[in-house]
Protein backbone atom coordinates (compact mmCIF):
# COMPACT_ATOMS: atom_id res chain seq x y z
CA UNK A 1 0.00 0.00 0.00
CA UNK A 2 1.61 3.22 -1.19
CA UNK A 3 0.67 6.81 -0.41
CA UNK A 4 2.07 9.31 -2.88
CA UNK A 5 1.61 13.00 -3.48
CA UNK A 6 1.79 14.60 -6.87
CA UNK A 7 2.66 18.31 -7.15
CA UNK A 8 0.86 18.93 -3.85
CA UNK A 9 0.43 22.56 -2.80
CA UNK A 10 -1.06 23.83 0.44
CA UNK A 11 -2.10 27.36 1.32
CA UNK A 12 -3.04 29.18 4.50
CA UNK A 13 -5.28 31.95 3.27
CA UNK A 14 -3.35 33.59 0.47
CA UNK A 15 0.05 32.41 1.78
CA UNK A 16 1.65 29.36 0.17
CA UNK A 17 2.82 26.88 2.82
CA UNK A 18 3.96 24.01 0.65
CA UNK A 19 4.58 24.21 -3.08
CA UNK A 20 4.57 21.26 -5.50
CA UNK A 21 5.49 18.49 -3.05
CA UNK A 22 6.24 15.12 -4.62
CA UNK A 23 6.44 12.50 -1.91
CA UNK A 24 6.27 8.72 -2.13
CA UNK A 25 5.88 7.04 1.24
CA UNK A 26 7.61 3.68 1.20
CA UNK A 27 6.12 0.75 3.12
CA UNK A 28 8.41 0.05 6.06
CA UNK A 29 9.66 3.58 6.59
CA UNK A 30 9.42 6.11 9.39
CA UNK A 31 9.23 9.64 8.00
CA UNK A 32 9.74 12.64 10.28
CA UNK A 33 8.35 16.07 9.38
CA UNK A 34 10.12 19.09 10.86
CA UNK A 35 9.24 22.74 10.58
CA UNK A 36 8.54 25.86 12.60
CA UNK A 37 5.12 26.51 14.15
CA UNK A 38 2.63 27.27 11.41
CA UNK A 39 4.78 25.79 8.65
CA UNK A 40 1.97 23.45 7.58
CA UNK A 41 2.88 20.18 9.31
CA UNK A 42 -0.59 19.46 10.71
CA UNK A 43 -2.29 20.66 7.54
CA UNK A 44 -0.12 18.33 5.48
CA UNK A 45 -1.04 15.34 7.68
CA UNK A 46 -4.74 16.21 7.35
CA UNK A 47 -4.42 16.39 3.56
CA UNK A 48 -2.41 13.14 3.44
CA UNK A 49 -5.24 11.52 5.43
CA UNK A 50 -7.72 12.66 2.78
CA UNK A 51 -9.61 14.82 5.27
CA UNK A 52 -8.89 18.18 3.63
CA UNK A 53 -8.44 19.21 0.03
CA UNK A 54 -5.10 20.65 -1.08
CA UNK A 55 -4.88 23.93 -2.99
CA UNK A 56 -3.38 22.01 -5.89
CA UNK A 57 -2.17 18.53 -6.70
CA UNK A 58 -3.27 15.16 -5.44
CA UNK A 59 -2.75 12.55 -2.76
CA UNK A 60 -3.01 9.02 -4.13
CA UNK A 61 -3.43 5.74 -2.28
CA UNK A 62 -2.28 3.00 -4.66
CA UNK A 63 -3.06 5.36 -7.53
CA UNK A 64 -6.54 6.38 -6.31
CA UNK A 65 -7.24 9.93 -5.10
CA UNK A 66 -7.49 9.51 -1.34
CA UNK A 67 -10.12 12.24 -0.92
CA UNK A 68 -12.47 10.26 -3.18
CA UNK A 69 -12.29 7.02 -1.18
CA UNK A 70 -15.37 6.08 0.88
CA UNK A 71 -14.72 7.22 4.48
CA UNK A 72 -14.69 3.71 5.95
CA UNK A 73 -12.38 2.30 3.28
CA UNK A 74 -9.99 5.16 3.86
CA UNK A 75 -10.11 4.61 7.63
CA UNK A 76 -9.26 0.94 7.14
CA UNK A 77 -5.92 1.97 5.62
CA UNK A 78 -4.97 5.41 6.90
CA UNK A 79 -4.94 6.46 10.55
CA UNK A 80 -4.48 9.96 11.92
CA UNK A 81 -3.45 11.04 15.40
CA UNK A 82 -4.50 14.70 15.56
CA UNK A 83 -3.44 16.91 18.43
CA UNK A 84 -5.49 16.25 21.55
CA UNK A 85 -9.11 17.31 21.99
CA UNK A 86 -11.11 14.89 24.10
CA UNK A 87 -13.39 17.39 25.87
CA UNK A 88 -16.56 15.70 24.63
CA UNK A 89 -15.72 12.14 25.67
CA UNK A 90 -17.31 10.95 28.90
CA UNK A 91 -16.47 7.23 28.90
CA UNK A 92 -13.68 5.04 30.23
CA UNK A 93 -10.17 4.58 28.88
CA UNK A 94 -11.11 1.16 27.49
CA UNK A 95 -14.18 2.61 25.73
CA UNK A 96 -11.98 5.31 24.26
CA UNK A 97 -9.28 2.94 23.01
CA UNK A 98 -11.92 0.62 21.52
CA UNK A 99 -13.17 3.41 19.21
CA UNK A 100 -10.06 2.75 17.09
CA UNK A 101 -11.86 -0.38 15.89
CA UNK A 102 -14.76 1.62 14.41
CA UNK A 103 -13.81 1.06 10.73
CA UNK A 104 -13.96 -2.71 11.23
CA UNK A 105 -16.64 -5.24 12.19
CA UNK A 106 -16.62 -7.36 15.30
CA UNK A 107 -15.14 -6.43 18.65
CA UNK A 108 -11.47 -5.57 19.14
CA UNK A 109 -8.96 -7.37 21.34
CA UNK A 110 -7.87 -4.44 23.48
CA UNK A 111 -5.67 -6.27 25.99
CA UNK A 112 -2.38 -6.26 24.02
CA UNK A 113 -2.75 -2.60 23.08
CA UNK A 114 -3.61 -1.56 26.62
CA UNK A 115 -0.55 -3.51 27.78
CA UNK A 116 1.76 -1.94 25.19
CA UNK A 117 0.82 1.55 26.30
CA UNK A 118 0.71 0.65 30.02
CA UNK A 119 -2.98 1.40 30.30
CA UNK A 120 -4.17 -1.95 31.65
CA UNK A 121 -4.55 -0.62 35.20
CA UNK A 122 -6.22 2.56 33.96
CA UNK A 123 -8.68 0.83 31.62
CA UNK A 124 -11.78 1.39 33.76
CA UNK A 125 -10.96 4.96 34.75
CA UNK A 126 -12.89 7.82 33.08
CA UNK A 127 -10.65 9.24 30.36
CA UNK A 128 -11.17 12.74 31.75
CA UNK A 129 -9.34 11.81 34.99
CA UNK A 130 -6.07 10.89 33.24
CA UNK A 131 -2.94 13.03 33.20
CA UNK A 132 -1.77 14.57 29.94
CA UNK A 133 0.82 11.87 29.30
CA UNK A 134 -1.59 9.05 30.18
CA UNK A 135 -4.17 10.53 27.84
CA UNK A 136 -1.60 10.74 25.05
CA UNK A 137 -0.88 7.02 25.59
CA UNK A 138 -4.62 6.30 25.35
CA UNK A 139 -4.75 8.19 22.05
CA UNK A 140 -1.78 6.21 20.73
CA UNK A 141 -3.40 2.95 21.85
CA UNK A 142 -6.60 3.96 20.03
CA UNK A 143 -4.57 4.48 16.85
CA UNK A 144 -2.79 1.17 17.37
CA UNK A 145 -6.17 -0.60 17.59
CA UNK A 146 -6.99 0.82 14.15
CA UNK A 147 -3.75 -0.78 12.83
CA UNK A 148 -3.48 1.56 9.86
CA UNK A 149 -1.14 0.68 6.98
CA UNK A 150 -0.23 4.36 6.99
CA UNK A 151 -0.15 6.05 10.39
CA UNK A 152 0.03 9.85 10.44
CA UNK A 153 0.94 11.21 13.88
CA UNK A 154 0.87 14.89 14.78
CA UNK A 155 3.43 15.60 17.50
CA UNK A 156 3.04 12.20 19.15
CA UNK A 157 5.87 12.92 21.61
CA UNK A 158 3.76 15.59 23.35
CA UNK A 159 3.42 14.96 27.11
CA UNK A 160 5.32 11.65 26.96
CA UNK A 161 8.10 10.98 29.45
CA UNK A 162 11.39 9.56 28.07
CA UNK A 163 10.37 5.96 28.79
CA UNK A 164 7.17 6.35 26.80
CA UNK A 165 8.96 8.23 24.05
CA UNK A 166 11.17 5.14 23.75
CA UNK A 167 8.04 3.00 23.66
CA UNK A 168 6.65 5.13 20.85
CA UNK A 169 9.90 4.67 18.95
CA UNK A 170 9.73 0.90 19.43
CA UNK A 171 6.11 0.88 18.28
CA UNK A 172 6.89 2.98 15.18
CA UNK A 173 9.83 0.72 14.30
CA UNK A 174 7.78 -2.45 14.75
CA UNK A 175 5.01 -1.00 12.55
CA UNK A 176 7.61 -0.20 9.88
CA UNK A 177 9.15 -3.65 10.18
CA UNK A 178 5.69 -5.13 9.59
CA UNK A 179 5.60 -3.26 6.26
CA UNK A 180 3.51 -0.35 7.46
CA UNK A 181 4.46 3.28 7.20
CA UNK A 182 4.68 5.81 10.02
CA UNK A 183 4.74 9.57 9.44
CA UNK A 184 5.21 11.85 12.41
CA UNK A 185 5.74 15.53 13.06
CA UNK A 186 8.22 16.46 15.75
CA UNK A 187 10.45 19.25 16.99
CA UNK A 188 13.51 17.42 18.32
CA UNK A 189 16.21 17.01 15.63
CA UNK A 190 18.16 14.53 17.77
CA UNK A 191 15.12 12.28 18.09
CA UNK A 192 14.54 12.68 14.36
CA UNK A 193 18.14 11.75 13.61
CA UNK A 194 18.00 8.61 15.71
CA UNK A 195 14.62 7.26 14.80
CA UNK A 196 13.50 8.41 11.35
CA UNK A 197 14.52 6.85 8.04
CA UNK A 198 13.78 10.02 6.10
CA UNK A 199 12.99 13.59 7.00
CA UNK A 200 10.85 16.26 5.37
CA UNK A 201 11.73 19.86 6.16
CA UNK A 202 8.91 22.38 5.71
CA UNK A 203 10.02 26.02 5.57
CA UNK A 204 6.50 27.48 5.65
CA UNK A 205 6.99 29.62 2.53
CA UNK A 206 6.44 26.94 -0.09
CA UNK A 207 9.94 25.45 0.03
CA UNK A 208 10.56 21.92 1.30
CA UNK A 209 13.44 19.44 1.44
CA UNK A 210 13.29 15.68 1.58
CA UNK A 211 16.24 13.44 2.50
CA UNK A 212 17.90 11.20 5.05
CA UNK A 213 18.82 12.61 8.46
CA UNK A 214 22.49 12.48 7.46
CA UNK A 215 21.77 14.59 4.41
CA UNK A 216 19.53 17.14 6.05
CA UNK A 217 20.62 17.61 9.64
CA UNK A 218 23.40 20.16 10.07
CA UNK A 219 23.61 23.23 12.30
CA UNK A 220 23.31 25.41 9.23
CA UNK A 221 20.24 23.59 7.90
CA UNK A 222 18.51 23.90 11.29
CA UNK A 223 19.13 27.64 11.32
CA UNK A 224 17.68 27.82 7.84
CA UNK A 225 14.63 25.89 9.03
CA UNK A 226 13.97 27.39 12.47
CA UNK A 227 15.84 30.73 12.35
CA UNK A 228 19.01 32.16 13.84
CA UNK A 229 20.24 30.81 17.18
CA UNK A 230 18.76 27.34 16.77
CA UNK A 231 21.91 25.55 15.62
CA UNK A 232 22.64 24.55 19.23
CA UNK A 233 19.56 22.27 19.09
CA UNK A 234 21.85 19.97 17.16
CA UNK A 235 24.83 19.13 19.25
CA UNK A 236 25.69 15.51 18.71
CA UNK A 237 26.18 15.06 15.02
CA UNK A 238 27.73 11.65 15.58
CA UNK A 239 24.19 10.51 16.46
CA UNK A 240 23.05 11.02 12.92
CA UNK A 241 23.46 7.31 12.26
CA UNK A 242 20.33 5.39 13.33
CA UNK A 243 20.99 3.41 16.46
Amino acid at each position, binding site marked *: MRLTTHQLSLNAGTRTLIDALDLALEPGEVLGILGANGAGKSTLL*TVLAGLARPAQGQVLLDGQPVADLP*PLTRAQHIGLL*PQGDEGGFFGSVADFVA*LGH*FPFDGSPDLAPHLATWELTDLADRPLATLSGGERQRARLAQLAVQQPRIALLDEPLTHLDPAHQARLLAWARSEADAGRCVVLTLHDPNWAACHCDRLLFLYGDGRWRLGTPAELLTPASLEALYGPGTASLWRQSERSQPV
Partner: protein
Amino acid sequence: MAGALPADRELAQQILAELRAPRVAAAFACGGLLALAGVLMQTLFRNPLAEPYLLGVSGGAGLLALLGMAAGLAWPWISLLAFAGSLLALGLAAALGGRMLARDHTPLLLAGVMLAAGFGALIALVLSVAPAERLPGMLFFLMGDLAWTGNAPLLLAALGLAVAAALSLSRRLDVLQLSPLKAASLGVAVAPTRWTLFGLAGACTALVVAQAGSIGFVGLMVPHALRKLGFNGHRVLLPAAALAGGSLLVLADALARTVIEPRELPVGVLTALLGVPMMLWLLRRP
Protein backbone atom coordinates in the same frame (compact mmCIF):
# COMPACT_ATOMS: atom_id res chain seq x y z
CA MET B 1 -64.77 1.00 45.99
CA ALA B 2 -66.32 -1.98 47.74
CA GLY B 3 -69.80 -0.57 47.67
CA ALA B 4 -69.59 1.25 44.40
CA LEU B 5 -72.49 1.07 42.09
CA PRO B 6 -71.90 -0.47 38.69
CA ALA B 7 -72.33 2.98 37.17
CA ASP B 8 -69.57 4.37 39.41
CA ARG B 9 -67.23 1.58 38.46
CA GLU B 10 -67.98 2.18 34.83
CA LEU B 11 -67.25 5.84 35.28
CA ALA B 12 -64.00 5.05 37.07
CA GLN B 13 -62.98 2.71 34.27
CA GLN B 14 -63.91 5.30 31.73
CA ILE B 15 -61.80 7.93 33.50
CA LEU B 16 -58.89 5.50 33.65
CA ALA B 17 -59.11 4.45 30.01
CA GLU B 18 -60.01 7.75 28.42
CA LEU B 19 -58.29 10.34 30.60
CA ARG B 20 -55.63 8.89 32.90
CA ALA B 21 -54.04 6.22 30.70
CA PRO B 22 -53.59 8.47 27.64
CA ARG B 23 -52.16 11.20 29.83
CA VAL B 24 -49.67 8.82 31.48
CA ALA B 25 -48.72 7.46 28.06
CA ALA B 26 -48.29 10.97 26.68
CA ALA B 27 -46.19 11.98 29.69
CA PHE B 28 -43.96 8.95 29.22
CA ALA B 29 -43.52 9.61 25.51
CA CYS B 30 -42.79 13.32 26.00
CA GLY B 31 -40.24 12.62 28.73
CA GLY B 32 -38.60 9.93 26.63
CA LEU B 33 -38.40 12.15 23.56
CA LEU B 34 -36.92 15.04 25.54
CA ALA B 35 -34.27 12.89 27.22
CA LEU B 36 -33.40 11.29 23.89
CA ALA B 37 -33.09 14.72 22.26
CA GLY B 38 -30.88 15.75 25.17
CA VAL B 39 -28.46 12.88 24.54
CA LEU B 40 -28.33 13.72 20.84
CA MET B 41 -27.71 17.41 21.47
CA GLN B 42 -24.98 16.69 24.02
CA THR B 43 -23.23 14.44 21.52
CA LEU B 44 -23.72 16.89 18.65
CA PHE B 45 -22.18 19.73 20.65
CA ARG B 46 -19.73 17.54 22.62
CA ASN B 47 -20.96 19.31 25.72
CA PRO B 48 -22.78 17.94 28.77
CA LEU B 49 -24.63 21.24 29.20
CA ALA B 50 -26.36 21.01 25.82
CA GLU B 51 -30.09 20.34 26.00
CA PRO B 52 -33.06 20.13 23.63
CA TYR B 53 -33.97 23.83 23.83
CA LEU B 54 -30.43 25.09 23.30
CA LEU B 55 -31.04 26.29 19.75
CA GLY B 56 -34.16 28.32 20.46
CA VAL B 57 -36.76 25.59 19.75
CA SER B 58 -38.79 26.42 22.85
CA GLY B 59 -38.52 30.14 22.16
CA GLY B 60 -39.71 29.84 18.58
CA ALA B 61 -42.55 27.53 19.60
CA GLY B 62 -43.47 29.72 22.55
CA LEU B 63 -43.57 32.90 20.52
CA LEU B 64 -45.92 31.60 17.83
CA ALA B 65 -48.08 29.73 20.35
CA LEU B 66 -48.46 32.85 22.49
CA LEU B 67 -49.30 34.97 19.48
CA GLY B 68 -51.99 32.40 18.65
CA MET B 69 -53.32 32.53 22.21
CA ALA B 70 -53.31 36.32 22.21
CA ALA B 71 -55.36 36.17 19.01
CA GLY B 72 -57.80 33.85 20.75
CA LEU B 73 -57.08 30.68 18.76
CA ALA B 74 -57.98 27.28 20.23
CA TRP B 75 -55.76 24.27 21.02
CA PRO B 76 -55.13 22.36 17.80
CA TRP B 77 -54.11 25.65 16.19
CA ILE B 78 -51.85 26.52 19.11
CA SER B 79 -50.17 23.12 18.75
CA LEU B 80 -49.64 23.62 15.04
CA LEU B 81 -48.29 27.12 15.61
CA ALA B 82 -45.88 25.81 18.26
CA PHE B 83 -44.67 23.11 15.86
CA ALA B 84 -44.17 25.71 13.14
CA GLY B 85 -42.32 27.96 15.59
CA SER B 86 -39.95 25.11 16.50
CA LEU B 87 -39.17 24.43 12.88
CA LEU B 88 -38.70 28.15 12.26
CA ALA B 89 -36.13 28.34 15.07
CA LEU B 90 -34.29 25.23 13.85
CA GLY B 91 -34.30 26.46 10.26
CA LEU B 92 -32.94 29.86 11.26
CA ALA B 93 -30.21 28.30 13.44
CA ALA B 94 -29.18 25.98 10.62
CA ALA B 95 -29.20 28.71 8.00
CA LEU B 96 -27.30 31.20 10.13
CA GLY B 97 -24.77 28.92 11.83
CA GLY B 98 -24.62 25.57 10.06
CA ARG B 99 -22.10 26.27 7.33
CA MET B 100 -19.03 24.89 9.14
CA LEU B 101 -20.67 21.95 10.89
CA ALA B 102 -18.20 19.39 9.49
CA ARG B 103 -15.38 21.02 11.42
CA ASP B 104 -16.80 23.39 14.01
CA HIS B 105 -20.12 23.40 15.82
CA THR B 106 -19.53 26.75 17.58
CA PRO B 107 -21.24 28.95 14.92
CA LEU B 108 -24.39 26.80 15.10
CA LEU B 109 -24.30 26.95 18.89
CA LEU B 110 -23.89 30.73 18.90
CA ALA B 111 -26.62 31.26 16.31
CA GLY B 112 -28.98 29.08 18.35
CA VAL B 113 -28.23 30.79 21.65
CA MET B 114 -28.71 34.22 20.04
CA LEU B 115 -32.04 33.11 18.53
CA ALA B 116 -33.16 31.77 21.90
CA ALA B 117 -32.35 35.14 23.49
CA GLY B 118 -34.21 36.99 20.75
CA PHE B 119 -37.29 34.77 21.04
CA GLY B 120 -37.15 35.18 24.82
CA ALA B 121 -37.35 38.95 24.47
CA LEU B 122 -40.25 38.72 22.01
CA ILE B 123 -42.10 36.35 24.34
CA ALA B 124 -41.67 38.83 27.20
CA LEU B 125 -43.04 41.51 24.91
CA VAL B 126 -46.13 39.44 24.04
CA LEU B 127 -46.68 38.62 27.72
CA SER B 128 -46.50 42.26 28.73
CA VAL B 129 -49.13 43.41 26.24
CA ALA B 130 -51.39 40.32 26.20
CA PRO B 131 -54.89 40.52 27.75
CA ALA B 132 -54.67 39.60 31.44
CA GLU B 133 -57.23 36.77 31.25
CA ARG B 134 -55.04 34.89 28.76
CA LEU B 135 -51.87 35.07 30.87
CA PRO B 136 -52.34 31.85 32.94
CA GLY B 137 -52.70 29.74 29.80
CA MET B 138 -49.63 31.37 28.32
CA LEU B 139 -47.56 30.78 31.44
CA PHE B 140 -48.62 27.13 31.61
CA PHE B 141 -47.57 26.67 28.01
CA LEU B 142 -44.20 28.29 28.66
CA MET B 143 -43.55 26.13 31.71
CA GLY B 144 -44.77 22.97 30.06
CA ASP B 145 -48.15 21.38 30.67
CA LEU B 146 -49.56 18.01 29.72
CA ALA B 147 -53.22 18.94 30.25
CA TRP B 148 -53.89 19.56 26.56
CA THR B 149 -51.88 16.69 25.19
CA GLY B 150 -54.37 14.70 23.18
CA ASN B 151 -52.27 12.51 21.02
CA ALA B 152 -50.64 9.77 23.08
CA PRO B 153 -50.50 7.14 20.28
CA LEU B 154 -48.73 9.60 17.97
CA LEU B 155 -46.21 10.49 20.67
CA LEU B 156 -45.54 6.86 21.61
CA ALA B 157 -45.03 5.92 17.97
CA ALA B 158 -42.67 8.85 17.56
CA LEU B 159 -40.70 7.78 20.62
CA GLY B 160 -40.35 4.25 19.26
CA LEU B 161 -39.23 5.49 15.87
CA ALA B 162 -36.82 8.02 17.35
CA VAL B 163 -35.18 5.45 19.64
CA ALA B 164 -34.80 3.06 16.71
CA ALA B 165 -33.34 5.76 14.47
CA ALA B 166 -30.93 6.94 17.16
CA LEU B 167 -29.86 3.36 17.95
CA SER B 168 -29.02 2.78 14.31
CA LEU B 169 -26.52 5.64 14.68
CA SER B 170 -25.16 4.57 18.07
CA ARG B 171 -21.64 3.47 17.02
CA ARG B 172 -21.20 6.65 15.01
CA LEU B 173 -22.41 8.71 17.96
CA ASP B 174 -19.76 7.11 20.16
CA VAL B 175 -17.09 8.22 17.67
CA LEU B 176 -18.58 11.71 17.32
CA GLN B 177 -17.69 12.34 20.95
CA LEU B 178 -14.12 12.67 19.65
CA SER B 179 -12.94 15.76 17.78
CA PRO B 180 -14.47 16.14 14.30
CA LEU B 181 -11.07 15.54 12.70
CA LYS B 182 -10.46 12.33 14.67
CA ALA B 183 -14.00 11.13 13.99
CA ALA B 184 -13.52 11.75 10.26
CA SER B 185 -10.20 9.89 10.31
CA LEU B 186 -12.01 6.88 11.78
CA GLY B 187 -14.42 6.86 8.85
CA VAL B 188 -17.43 8.79 10.13
CA ALA B 189 -18.95 11.21 7.61
CA VAL B 190 -19.05 14.00 10.18
CA ALA B 191 -21.23 16.63 8.49
CA PRO B 192 -24.05 14.30 7.34
CA THR B 193 -24.11 12.52 10.70
CA ARG B 194 -24.20 15.80 12.61
CA TRP B 195 -27.06 17.07 10.41
CA THR B 196 -28.94 13.83 11.02
CA LEU B 197 -28.47 14.33 14.76
CA PHE B 198 -29.62 17.93 14.49
CA GLY B 199 -32.73 16.92 12.55
CA LEU B 200 -33.62 14.00 14.82
CA ALA B 201 -33.14 15.96 18.05
CA GLY B 202 -35.03 18.90 16.54
CA ALA B 203 -37.95 16.73 15.42
CA CYS B 204 -38.26 15.07 18.86
CA THR B 205 -38.21 18.43 20.61
CA ALA B 206 -40.59 20.16 18.20
CA LEU B 207 -43.10 17.34 18.59
CA VAL B 208 -43.05 17.56 22.38
CA VAL B 209 -43.20 21.36 22.46
CA ALA B 210 -46.18 21.32 20.11
CA GLN B 211 -48.01 18.86 22.37
CA ALA B 212 -47.01 19.99 25.82
CA GLY B 213 -45.11 23.28 25.76
CA SER B 214 -41.57 23.69 27.00
CA ILE B 215 -41.12 21.12 29.73
CA GLY B 216 -37.71 21.92 31.09
CA PHE B 217 -34.92 20.01 32.72
CA VAL B 218 -35.71 16.45 31.57
CA GLY B 219 -33.55 16.77 28.47
CA LEU B 220 -30.64 18.26 30.39
CA MET B 221 -30.70 16.21 33.53
CA VAL B 222 -31.58 12.68 32.46
CA PRO B 223 -28.66 12.13 30.02
CA HIS B 224 -26.27 13.79 32.41
CA ALA B 225 -27.43 11.71 35.36
CA LEU B 226 -27.24 8.48 33.36
CA ARG B 227 -23.69 9.27 32.26
CA LYS B 228 -22.81 9.93 35.87
CA LEU B 229 -24.23 6.50 36.73
CA GLY B 230 -21.97 4.88 34.14
CA PHE B 231 -24.19 4.63 31.05
CA ASN B 232 -21.74 5.82 28.44
CA GLY B 233 -21.93 3.86 25.21
CA HIS B 234 -24.83 5.18 23.14
CA ARG B 235 -26.19 1.66 22.61
CA VAL B 236 -27.26 1.59 26.27
CA LEU B 237 -27.46 5.33 26.92
CA LEU B 238 -30.14 6.01 24.27
CA PRO B 239 -32.76 3.47 25.41
CA ALA B 240 -31.92 4.15 29.06
CA ALA B 241 -32.51 7.87 28.51
CA ALA B 242 -35.87 7.21 26.84
CA LEU B 243 -36.96 5.01 29.76
CA ALA B 244 -35.66 7.27 32.51
CA GLY B 245 -36.93 10.47 30.88
CA GLY B 246 -40.36 8.92 30.38
CA SER B 247 -40.52 7.65 33.96
CA LEU B 248 -39.41 11.00 35.40
CA LEU B 249 -42.11 12.85 33.51
CA VAL B 250 -44.83 10.36 34.49
CA LEU B 251 -43.84 10.84 38.13
CA ALA B 252 -43.64 14.62 37.80
CA ASP B 253 -47.03 14.77 36.06
CA ALA B 254 -48.68 12.58 38.70
CA LEU B 255 -47.42 14.99 41.36
CA ALA B 256 -48.39 18.04 39.29
CA ARG B 257 -51.97 16.75 39.18
CA THR B 258 -52.23 15.82 42.85
CA VAL B 259 -50.12 17.96 45.18
CA ILE B 260 -52.57 20.86 45.32
CA GLU B 261 -55.68 19.01 44.13
CA PRO B 262 -58.04 19.95 42.56
CA ARG B 263 -55.74 22.51 40.93
CA GLU B 264 -52.91 21.46 38.65
CA LEU B 265 -49.37 22.76 38.59
CA PRO B 266 -47.41 23.10 35.34
CA VAL B 267 -45.44 19.88 35.06
CA GLY B 268 -42.27 21.81 34.22
CA VAL B 269 -42.22 23.13 37.79
CA LEU B 270 -42.23 19.57 39.12
CA THR B 271 -39.54 18.25 36.77
CA ALA B 272 -37.21 20.93 38.08
CA LEU B 273 -38.26 20.47 41.71
CA LEU B 274 -37.60 16.71 41.42
CA GLY B 275 -34.59 17.01 39.15
CA VAL B 276 -32.52 19.68 40.84
CA PRO B 277 -32.01 17.85 44.16
CA MET B 278 -31.48 14.56 42.32
CA MET B 279 -28.81 16.14 40.15
CA LEU B 280 -27.10 17.89 43.06
CA TRP B 281 -27.00 14.61 44.95
CA LEU B 282 -25.47 12.87 41.93
CA LEU B 283 -22.84 15.58 41.56
CA ARG B 284 -21.71 14.99 45.13
CA ARG B 285 -21.14 11.29 44.48
CA PRO B 286 -17.45 10.42 44.05
